[in-house]
Structures are given as structure tokens and as C-alpha cells.
């Protein structure tokens, strides 16, 4: 592989020493996104959706155009199906509070999987506790695959909500969300897709998936922090009560009651994060200019290189598929006799940034019977040289820790 041609687009890489391999946690931002932020504040800054003056209209337009850009990105039918939130976690909480609390009752079931991120577990624990619905877990097989038999045995007449991660942030595996959605819809359940780890890596088509709700975070695909997305089918959003209340999400307010604005504004209380939306739209432009094909190619090549490079180190165990192209750039591993935190500290001395811990997926850790794991997560701006250094450092960890090999 040649020198990576995308790195120069990122100020982050221009003068620091880090080998950044924690891309599943958050990504770096290209200059075009930082420029878009500054440009917004310099030229179009006013409170969107409020001012009647030209500057206010301009702010509103840039904000609403960002919404259209997002709709196009995930192939939503209409931009009113895009609600801006802070992040994936808030998006899922919104569905849990607004749809979940008002549609679940004792005897109903919510189905999630053991490999969910806490952000797709805790909101459902909360809703189930409050409504006395039952929380059911799909279990993957030892390769991390949720089989057809598994989901067909757990989804049924009592199922009201299925909420499932598109790509696992630990195993990197892609779940069969389209098939699960189609099966769940037979029973009238609504399907929530946690796309936090898929949106940065592969084309999302909400209509093809037939997702009822879908959530992702801007910061995981090079957009600013503080902006996230909730897609929801219009017919569902329209019948849901608001979640946060205040500001311009209303029609009329009297002392005792209020009527609410149309979707999506009904769900966006208070001053919106126009900077974040504008930055997200620009990040999507940038991402699509690179192209998902290129992204997947680079990631798969680097992932293969990494998995191949550590294959001979018998004391390293990796999780998930043995096929590198089924990892979305995520390689989670443990080293026998070495705690993942010690791995991270040792790699840190070589300026390599990897994640160690439970990755906000404690039930999956319990399922895998490990306390914690280490994780290297690759994005298209990483290079073969960086992976080489990672392999080299990993090959030395046990020696540093006092083992013979």
C-alpha cells in the first residue's frame, strides 16, 4: 500500500506522534469539517428556526440543509424523519422514553442482544423496569453470529421492540438486521438499529433495512462531538409524545397546556446545535468523497495485515470472525497472562493508542468470560506502517511483563 493519501486532510496527523487506533471510540476530524465550523460562526451564526432576518434564515437553511444531507446519506424518504440529537446514546434514550414508555406494558417483550453497547441496554432495562415488560437477550454463537434459529426462537407475538446493534463495537461482526427486522415486522414489533459502528464504515439504507428507528453519532464519522442522529419512520415519530420540552418545539403554549410542532422539530427542544449539524453534513460530504468502497478496502487490508501479523503469537487470542473482512476494522484481543490495561500502558509508551477495558459492553464480556479485552480499531486513514508498529509492540508485551517468550 502507498502512503495514505487521506492523512494530509487531517490536522491531527500533521504534527503529532500518535498511532491512533481507537477509531471505534471516536475518529479524527478532517480540516474541511473544522473549516465548516468556523465558516458557520463567521458567516451564518444566529439562532436557527427563530430569527426572521436574513442571517437567521441563513442559519436555519444551513441547519435544515444538513438534515437533508443526513436523510440522503441513509436514504430516508424525507428529511423530517431525521431528528438531531447529541449522540447515539441520546437517540436510543429518546426512543426508549418516548416510544417505549408509552407503548409497552406488562407481558410485552423487548429483544436485544448480548453484544449490545450499554447505550443499547440500559435504556431498555429502564423501560422494562418501568413498564414491567420483559427484556430478552439474543445470544451469538462462539463466532459472534446471531443465527436465524436464535432470533426466530426469541422474537414472537409478545415482542414489541427489537433493538439491535448493526456492527458490534467489540467483535466487529455485522448482525443480520435486515433479516431480523423482516422477521420482527411479522409480529408487528418495531425495530431499532444501533448504527453507531456501522455508519462510519458501510452504506446505510434505512429503507432497504426497513428499520423503524436508527441511531448513530457524528463523532464516530469525523463530525464534531455533540451531534447525533435519530432516524424514525414518520408515521411513528408523528404519534410519539415529545421527549425534551422547551423552546421552539411548540405550536401554542398556555399556562396549563401546550400543543407541539410537527416532526422533527417536536423532538428538538431548545437552541439546536447548528454547528454540529453543519459539521456533520460536511463530514458526510468528505466521507462520501472518499467512498465506502475505498474505506472498506483499506480497512479490510489493514485488518487482514494485523490479524495475519499476530496469528503466530499463540498467546494472543482474537475475538469474532476469523475472516478479517467481517470486522469493520475492529480487532479485539487478549494476551495470556497480561491484563489489557497493562497492554494499553505498554503500547502507550510506543505512542500507540488502543482501547482496553469492557468497551461499554459488560454483558458481552461476561458472555465471553473475560474481565476485559484490548481493542485496536482501524479507520481508512491508518497505514500499514502503523499496523506494523502495532504488531511489533504486541510481540514484545509479554517480554516486558517478564515472560520468557
Amino acid at each position, binding site marked *: 500500500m502507498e502512503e495514505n493519501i487521506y492523512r494530509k486532510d487531517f490536522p491531527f496527523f500533521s504534527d503529532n506522534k500518535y498511532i491512533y487506533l481507537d477509531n471505534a471510540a471516536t475518529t479524527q476530524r478532517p480540516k474541511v469539517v473544522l473549516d465548516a465550523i468556523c465558516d458557520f460562526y463567521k458567516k451564518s451564526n444566529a439562532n436557527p428556526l427563530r430569527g426572521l432576518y436574513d442571517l437567521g434564515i441563513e442559519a436555519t437553511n444551513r441547519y435544515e440543509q444538513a438534515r437533508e444531507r443526513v436523510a440522503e446519506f441513509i436514504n430516508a424518504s424525507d428529511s423530517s424523519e431525521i431528528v438531531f440529537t447529541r449522540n447515539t446514546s441520546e437517540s436510543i434514550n429518546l426512543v426508549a422514553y418516548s416510544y417505549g414508555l408509552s407503548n409497552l406494558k406488562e407481558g410485552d417483550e423487548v429483544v436485544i442482544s448480548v453484544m449490545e453497547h450499554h447505550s443499547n441496554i440500559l435504556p431498555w432495562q429502564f423501560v422494562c423496569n418501568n413498564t414491567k415488560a420483559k427484556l430478552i437477550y439474543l445470544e451469538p454463537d462462539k463466532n459472534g453470529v446471531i443465527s436465524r434459529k436464535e432470533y426466530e426462537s426469541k422474537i414472537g407475538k409478545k415482542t414489541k421492540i427489537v433493538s439491535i446493534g448493526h456492527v458490534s463495537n467489540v467483535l466487529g461482526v455485522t448482525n443480520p438486521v435486515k433479516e431480523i427486522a423482516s422477521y420482527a415486522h411479522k409480529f408487528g414489533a418495531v425495530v431499532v438499529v444501533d448504527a453507531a459502528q456501522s455508519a462510519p464504515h458501510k452504506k446505510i439504507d434505512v429503507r432497504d433495512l426497513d428499520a423503524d428507528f436508527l441511531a448513530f453519532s457524528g463523532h464516530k464519522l469525523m463530525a464534531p462531538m455533540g451531534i447525533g442522529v435519530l432516524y424514525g419512520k414518520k408515521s411513528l415519530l408523528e404519534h410519539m409524545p415529545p421527549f425534551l420540552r422547551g423552546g421552539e418545539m411548540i405550536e401554542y403554549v398556555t399556562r396549563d397546556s401546550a400543543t407541539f410542532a410537527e416532526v422533527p422539530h417536536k423532538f428538538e427542544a431548545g437552541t439546536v446545535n447548528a454547528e454540529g449539524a453543519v459539521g456533520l453534513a460536511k463530514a458526510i460530504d468528505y466521507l462520501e468523497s472518499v467512498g465506502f468502497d475505498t474505506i472498506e478496502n483499506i480497512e479490510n487490508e489493514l485488518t487482514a495485515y494485523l490479524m495475519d501479523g499476530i496469528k503466530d503469537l499463540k498467546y494472543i487470542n482474537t475475538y469474532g470472525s476469523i475472516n478479517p473482512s467481517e470486522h469493520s476494522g475492529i480487532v479485539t484481543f487478549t494476551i495470556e497472562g*497480561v*491484563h*489489557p*490495561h*497493562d497492554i*494499553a*500502558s*505498554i503500547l*502507550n*509508551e510506543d505512542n500507540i493508542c488502543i482501547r482496553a*477495558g*469492557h468497551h461499554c459492553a459488560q454483558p458481552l464480556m461476561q458472555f465471553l468470560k473475560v*474481565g*476485559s479485552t484490548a481493542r485496536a480499531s482501524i479507520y481508512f486513514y491508518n497505514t500499514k506502517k502503523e499496523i506494523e508498529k502495532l504488531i511489533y509492540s504486541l510481540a514484545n508485551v509479554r517480554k*516486558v*511483563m*517478564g515472560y520468557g517468550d
Partner: protein
Amino acid sequence: MEIKQFYREIVNEHNLHPMHKGRMEGPDLVLRGVNPSCGDDIILQLKLNGEIIEDAMFIGTGCAISQASVDMMADQIIGKTKEKALEMAQVFMGMIKGNITDEAELEVLDEAAALQDVSHMPARVKCAVLGWHTMQEILNNPEKSEKLS
């Protein structure tokens, strides 16, 4: 000291060959200490003779720094009074948080002072202090003592 060197020269010995790891017969005080974010999880066991800590042992799992630190701690507090042990804990915490750097002041820690480098590893502070923190808890609140299961 560099981190790798720190592991090699200080941590590994106690991590790989702990002297005080194991289940104690008839401990007087037992307390579990946990760092949720890392998964460090120890059970500290103390045997007392009046004011004197006659023996200290631990079981559990965790990162090398947490394991080495609690092993070093046990080594240092055996034979000391409870008061002295608590004083040492104070100094240790101060050292790790970077507030105490004066060598004379650190002398009381003896070999445990070798963990001073952790003060430059902010992510690992919790690991290093887990044992000492658990000891403080149980000496100050003996009523919290648990049964060894």
C-alpha cells in the same frame, strides 16, 4: 523511569511471584476492593494482634500494577501498628497523586515508594491505590468486614 523499564524492574516481580497472595486462615478483617472501570478486584485479609497487623494477604485478579501494589503493601504493613499503616497509606496516596515528592517523606513507604512512577500514569492511579484504599476502608470501618466465602 520509562514504563517498560518500570514493569521490568518493579512490577513484574510482585505480579508474577507475589509473596502475600492466598487465602488466609482465620483472618480478623476481610474487605473486597474493586475498580469497576478496570475490573481490578481484590479481597484483602488482615490478621491483627491488638494494634499490630500480624499478617496481610490478598486474593483476586487485576492488572499487574494493582496486584504488585497490594503485594508490596502487604509486605510493608506486616508488623506495623494500624496507626502506622494508615499513615503510610496517606503518604502513598499523596505520592501517587503527585502531591508528595520529597524523598525523605517517602522513606516511610520503603520498597512501596518504587511505585512513584505511577504518578506519571494518570490512567493507572486507581490501580496502584486499590490495595491501600481497601486497607484504609477496613481499618477505619472494621464493622464493614466481610466473610470469606
